C-alpha cells in the first residue's frame, strides 16, 4: 500500500503537465477529461488506500514512502518522503473527493472560457501541491506544498488577468500569506538549528526533550508556525486577503478559498500539536485569535452585498471556530469542523456559482430575489448548505461539528466560559447572515430574469455535496445524543483525544439549548429585518449611526485602510523617492568635485598671456617676500 502513496499527488501533477504543455492544442472535452479525470483517479486511489487503512491498520498507524533525497548539504538532509496517517488520510480524502466534484462542476461552469486548459492545469497543480502539503513527512516538503498552493491561489484569483483589479486581489493574497509564510520559514530555521531535522515525527519526539514546556524557545517556535497558519487560514490580523480573493472564478473559491487551502493553517497546527502543547501561551493565543476572528468576520458578513463576499467572510469566521477549537485543545473537533465545513461551504459556493451564472454574472444580493422557483434544485441544496452552516439541529453536519466545538470549549481547561460565549455569539451571527443571504437571494420578489440553468455536471456535485452536508455529521454524535464517537477514535492515533472533556448530561442539554435559542433568534431577526422589513426597520436603517456601523462592517472593520496607511503607503513612498538610488548621489558627488577642480585648474591654462605674466609676477613677489621677511 505504501508504494501507492506517491501516486496520489502524482496523478494531478501529471494532469497539470499534460495540460500545461499541450492543453492549448487539445479539444475541450479532452481537457475536461484529463483535468477532472486525474483528480477522480486520485480520489479513487485515496478511497482504496483508506479502505486498506481501516480494515488492516498499518504498523505505526501510518503508511510511509521515501522517494529520494531532496536537499542534502552540510549535515542537513531533507528527503522527498510521504507519510499517510489518519490525519493526512482525512485531508487527502476531502481534497480529492471534494476536489473532484468541483472539477466536474467546473468542466461545465468554465465551458465558454478562452483559458479552459489553463484553468484546469492550474487547478490540477493546486490539487497536487495540496496533497504534497498534507502527505509530507517533513516540514520542508510541507513548505513546498504550502508555497505551491499559495502560487496556485495567486494564479487562479488572477485567472481573468485582463482586469487589473483581479491582479491586485491576487497579489494581495500572495503577499499577505507570504508575510505569514516568512514567519513560518524563520520557525523552520529555528527548528533546524535546535533539532537538526525537520522530520515531523522526530520533531514531535525531540521537542519535548529539548524544549522545556513554556520555554522561550518553545514559545518562539510555536508563535512563528502560528504566523504561517494565520496567513494561510486568513485569521486576524492577516485575514484581509480572503474577501478580495473572490475575484477568482467561483469553483476556485469553492475549492481553494473554502474547502481546502485556507484550512491548511488548521492542519499545520493540528499536525504540530506537540509543539503547541509545549507553548501554552501560544495555544491560548490561538483560541483567542480564533474567537475574535469568528466574531469580527461574522459581523462583517452581515454588511456585505456581494453574495461571494458573504461566503468569504463566513469562511474566515468558520475557520475561526476551528482555531478556537485548536486553542482549547479540542483537536479532533477542529478537524471535524474542517470536514463538515468542506462539504457545506463548497456546496454553498457552487450554489452561488449557479446563481451568479444564471443572472449574467450578477453578484449583488440586493438585485436578486425570488430565485426559489426559478432554480429549485439550487434552492434546496443551498438551503441544506445554509442549514448546515447555521448548524441547525439534528439533520445537518454543521450541527454536530459546531456543537462539539462549543461543548469542548466549555469543558476544556484551555477554553472556558468567555471563549464559549464568543462561540455562542458567533453562532447567532452565523444564523443571522446565513438567513439574510437566503432570504435576499431566494425569497421576496423576482428582480432579474434567469437566463442560464445548470446542466448535469453542475447539478450532480450540488446533490452529492448536499447529501454529505446532511449526513456527514453522523460520524460523531454528542454524549446526549448517543455518544457515538468514531471520528475522535479514528484521529486518536494522531491527535490527543478529546473524550476526556466530560460534562454532566444536564450541562450538555443546557449548552445545546443555549445554541438553539440563539439560532432561533437569528432566523427570526433575519426574517424581520431582511424579508418583512416593517416601518421600524426602515426607519432604523436610515439612521446615520446605523449607516456608519454598516459601512465599517462592509469594509471588514477597516483593516485595509489601516494597512494601506501604515504599511503600503510608506513602502510606496520610499521606493518612489529613492527610485534613483540615493547612494549613487555619493559617487555622482565625487565626480562633480573632480569636474569642479578640473574647471578651476584649467582656467590657469586658458592661453591668455597676460594672466600667465600676472601669475609669474605675483609668484616672484611672493617668493621674494618670503625670502626677505623670513
Amino acid at each position, binding site marked *: 500500500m505504501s508504494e501507492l502513496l506517491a501516486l496520489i499527488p502524482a496523478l494531478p501533477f501529471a494532469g497539470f503537465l499534460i495540460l500545461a504543455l499541450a492543453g492549448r492544442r487539445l479539444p475541450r472535452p479532452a481537457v475536461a477529461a484529463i483535468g477532472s479525470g486525474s483528480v477522480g483517479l486520485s480520489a479513487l486511489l485515496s478511497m482504496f488506500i483508506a479502505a486498506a487503512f481501516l480494515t488492516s491498520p498499518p504498523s505505526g498507524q501510518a503508511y510511509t514512502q521515501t522517494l529520494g533525497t531532496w536537499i542534502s548539504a552540510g549535515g542537513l538532509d531533507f528527503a522527498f518522503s510521504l507519510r499517510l496517517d489518519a490525519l493526512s488520510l482525512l485531508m487527502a480524502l476531502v481534497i480529492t473527493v471534494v476536489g473532484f466534484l468541483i472539477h466536474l462542476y467546473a468542466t461545465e461552469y468554465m465551458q465558454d472560457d478562452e483559458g479552459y486548459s489553463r484553468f484546469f492545469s492550474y487547478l490540477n497543480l493546486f490539487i497536487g501541491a495540496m496533497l504534497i502539503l498534507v502527505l509530507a513527512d517533513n516540514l520542508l516538503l510541507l513548505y513546498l506544498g504550502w508555497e505551491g498552493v499559495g502560487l496556485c491561489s495567486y494564479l487562479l484569483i488572477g485567472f481573468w488577468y485582463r482586469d487589473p483589479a483581479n491582479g491586485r486581489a491576487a497579489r494581495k493574497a500572495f*503577499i499577505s500569506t507570504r508575510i505569514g509564510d516568512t514567519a513560518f520559514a524563520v520557525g523552520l530555521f529555528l527548528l533546524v538549528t535546535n533539532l537538526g531535522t525537520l522530520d515531523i515525527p522526530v520533531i514531535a519526539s525531540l521537542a519535548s526533550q529539548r524544549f522545556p514546556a513554556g520555554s522561550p524557545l518553545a514559545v518562539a517556535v510555536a508563535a512563528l508556525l502560528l504566523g504561517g497558519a494565520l496567513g494561510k487560514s486568513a485569521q486576524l490580523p492577516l485575514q484581509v486577503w480572503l474577501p478580495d480573493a473572490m475575484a477568482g472564478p467561483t469553483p476556485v473559491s469553492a475549492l481553494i478559498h473554502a474547502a481546502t487551502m485556507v484550512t491548511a493553517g488548521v492542519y499545520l497546527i493540528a499536525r504540530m500539536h506537540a509543539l503547541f502543547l509545549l507553548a501554552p501561551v501560544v495555544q491560548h493565543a490561538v483560541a483567542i485569535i480564533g474567537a475574535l476572528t469568528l466574531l469580527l468576520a461574522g459581523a462583517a458578513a452581515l454588511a456585505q452585498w456581494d453574495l461571494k463576499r458573504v461566503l468569504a467572510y463566513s469562511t474566515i469566521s468558520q475557520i475561526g471556530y476551528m482555531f478556537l477549537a485548536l486553542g482549547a485543545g479540542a483537536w479532533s473537533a477542529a478537524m471535524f469542523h474542517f470536514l463538515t465545513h468542506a462539504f457545506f461551504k463548497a456546496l454553498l459556493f457552487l450554489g452561488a456559482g449557479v446563481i451568479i451564472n444564471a443572472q449574467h454574472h450578477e453578484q449583488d444580493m440586493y438585485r436578486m430575489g425570488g430565485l426559489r422557483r426559478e432554480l429549485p434544485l439550487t434552492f434546496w441544496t443551498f438551503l441544506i448548505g445554509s442549514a448546515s452552516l447555521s448548524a441547525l439541529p439534528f439533520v445537518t453536519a454543521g450541527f454536530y461539528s459546531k456543537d462539539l466545538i462549543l461543548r469542548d470549549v466549555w469543558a476544556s481547561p484551555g477554553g472556558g466560559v468567555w471563549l464559549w460565549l464568543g462561540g455562542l455569539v458567533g453562532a447567532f451571527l452565523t444564523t443571522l447572515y446565513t438567513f439574510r443571504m437566503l432570504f435576499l437571494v431566494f425569497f421576496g420578489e423576482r428582480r432579474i430574469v434567469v437566463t442560464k440553468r445548470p446542466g448535469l455536471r453542475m447539478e450532480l456535485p450540488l446533490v452529492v455535496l448536499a447529501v454529505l452536508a446532511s449526513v456527514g455529521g453522523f460520524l460523531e454524535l454528542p454524549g446526549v445524543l448517543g455518544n457515538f464517537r468514531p471520528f475522535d477514535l479514528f484521529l486518536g492515533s494522531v491527535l490527543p483525544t478529546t473524550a476526556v472533556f466530560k460534562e454532566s448530561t444536564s450541562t450538555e442539554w443546557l449548552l445545546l439549548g443555549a445554541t438553539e435559542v440563539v439560532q432561533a433568534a437569528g432566523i427570526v431577526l433575519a426574517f424581520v429585518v431582511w424579508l418583512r422589513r416593517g416601518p421600524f426597520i426602515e426607519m432604523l436603517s436610515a439612521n446615520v449611526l446605523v449607516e456608519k456601523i454598516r459601512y465599517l462592517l462592509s469594509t471588514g472593520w477597516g483593516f485595509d485602510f489601516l494597512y494601506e496607511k501604515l504599511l503600503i503607503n510608506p513602502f510606496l513612498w520610499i521606493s518612489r523617492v529613492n527610485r534613483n538610488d540615493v547612494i549613487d548621489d555619493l559617487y555622482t558627488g565625487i565626480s562633480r568635485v573632480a569636474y569642479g577642480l578640473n574647471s578651476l585648474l584649467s582656467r590657469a591654462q586658458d592661453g591668455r598671456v597676460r594672466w600667465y605674466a600676472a601669475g609669474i609676477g605675483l609668484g616672484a613677489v611672493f617668493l621674494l617676500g618670503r625670502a626677505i621677511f623670513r
Partner: protein
Amino acid sequence: MILLWLIIVPLIAGPAAWAFGRGANSLSRWISLLALAVDGVLVLSLWQTAPAPGSSWIAELRLAWIPQLGIGLHLAADGLSLVLVSLTIVLGLASVLCSWKEIGERVGFFHFNLLWILSGILGVFLSLDLFLFYVFWELMLIPMYFLINIWGHENRVAASYKFFLFTQAGGLLMLLSILSLASVHQAETGILTFDYALLKTTSLGPAASLLVMLGFFAAFAVKLPVVPFHTWLPDAHTEAPTAGSVILAGLLLKTGAYGLLRFVIPLFPAASAAFAPAAAALAALGILYGAVVAFGQRDLKRLVAYTSVSHMGFVLLGAFAGSAAAQSGAVMQMVAHGISTGALFIIVGLLQERLHTRDMERMGGFWSLAPRLSALGLVFCLASLGLPGFANFVAEFLVLAGSFPAHTAAVSVSAAGLVLAAVYSLRVVQRVFHGTAAVPMLPDLDARETLVLALLAVAILWLGLQPGLILHPLSPAMDGLSASGVLAGLIK
C-alpha cells in the same frame, strides 16, 4: 591539461571569430558556439572525475611561468570551480544564442570580446596562483568595457566608464593586498611566491591581516556587489547588450562571490571571522535595499539589475556564516541566480527587440499576445521570488538556515527579503504579462528563443528538485572550507 585547454580554447577562438567573421557574420557566431561546445565536452570529462582521496581537488596543473618572481601557471579545480566553470559555459552558450539577431554590427569583434571575457572568467575560476588570478581578473574587465561601450544602449559610454572605474579601483586594492601578502611571506620564509597553497600558511598579525583582507574584500565587494558599492551595476546591466547583461549578472558577479569563498576566507580565517558580523549586516542591508529600489523602477531591465543586488546579499550572508550548509547555499544561489536572472535579462532583451522600449508603463497584457514568452517569463519571475521547487529556494533556504546560528538577527531581517521579492516579482508579472494588451501585436518566441529559455527553465526546475547535482560534487570543497577555516569556531 584539460584545465588549460578550457581557458585556451575561447582565447584562440576569439581572434578566429574576429578574423573569419569579417566577411560572414554567422561564421563568427558558429565559431563561438563551437568553441564553447568544445569547452562543454572538456568540462563534462571533469564531471566524471572524482577527487583524490583526502583532497578536494579534482584536477590540478602546475607549469612554470615566471619562476624568477615565483609566479606559476597553477590551475586547479575542485567542486566549486567545476560548478562555476560549467555555469560559465552554459551561460556563454546562452549569450551567443541570444545575440544571434540582436547584434548586427561588428559581429566579429563582438564575439572576440565575448569569448575573451569568458576565457578570463574561466581563468579566474581555475587559478591558484594569485598573480595569475589577477591577470585573469583584468582580462575579463577590458573586453566587457568594450561590450558595453560599443554595443550598449543610450547611455552606454557613461555606464562603461563607471563600470571600469569601480572595478578597477577595487582591483587595484586587491593588487596591493596580493603584493603585500607575497612580501610578508617572503620576509617570513625567504621565498617569493604567489602560490595559493604557500601563501595560505603566511601568518599575519590581526591588524595587518584585517587590512590585507579588506583589500581583497574591496575588489570582491565591488563585483558582488555589496551595498553601498553597487551603483555601477544598474547602469552597466541596463546599458549593456543582452549578452553583456547575461554575462555580467550571471558570471561576473559570481567572480566576486568566488573570490570571497576561495581567497578571503581561507587566506584570512581569523580576520574573516572578526569581520563576519559586519559582512552579515551588509548582506541584510543589501537584500532589503536592493529589493526596495528594484520595486521602484520603471525600466524593466533596471529592475532586474537591482534584484541582483538583493539576491547577491544572500551569497554574502552565506559566505560568512562559517557553515558548510550556508556556503553550499551561497554557491547554489550563484548558480540559481545566474540562470534565473540571465533568463530574465534575455526576456527583457527580447521585449526590447520587439517593442523598442524597456519602460514597463508601456507594457502589459502580453499573455494574450505571446503566451509562450509570458509563461516562461512567469516561470523565471517565480524562480526569482524563491518559490520552492526552483533552485533559488534551495539556495535561499540553505543560506538562511545555515547562517541562522551565527547571524540570527541578520537572518531574521533578511527573511523580510522573501516578502519583498514577492512584491517586486509579482509587480513585473502584473505590469508586463497580465492586464490589458498595451500593444496591438507582439510576436511570440521563435524556435531558437524558445529553445534557450525552455532549457534554462528546465535547468532551474531540475536543480530545484534535484539540487544534489550541484550540492554533491560541491560538498568536499565546502566541508573543507568550513572545517579548515577557523571561521566557524570563532563565530560561535
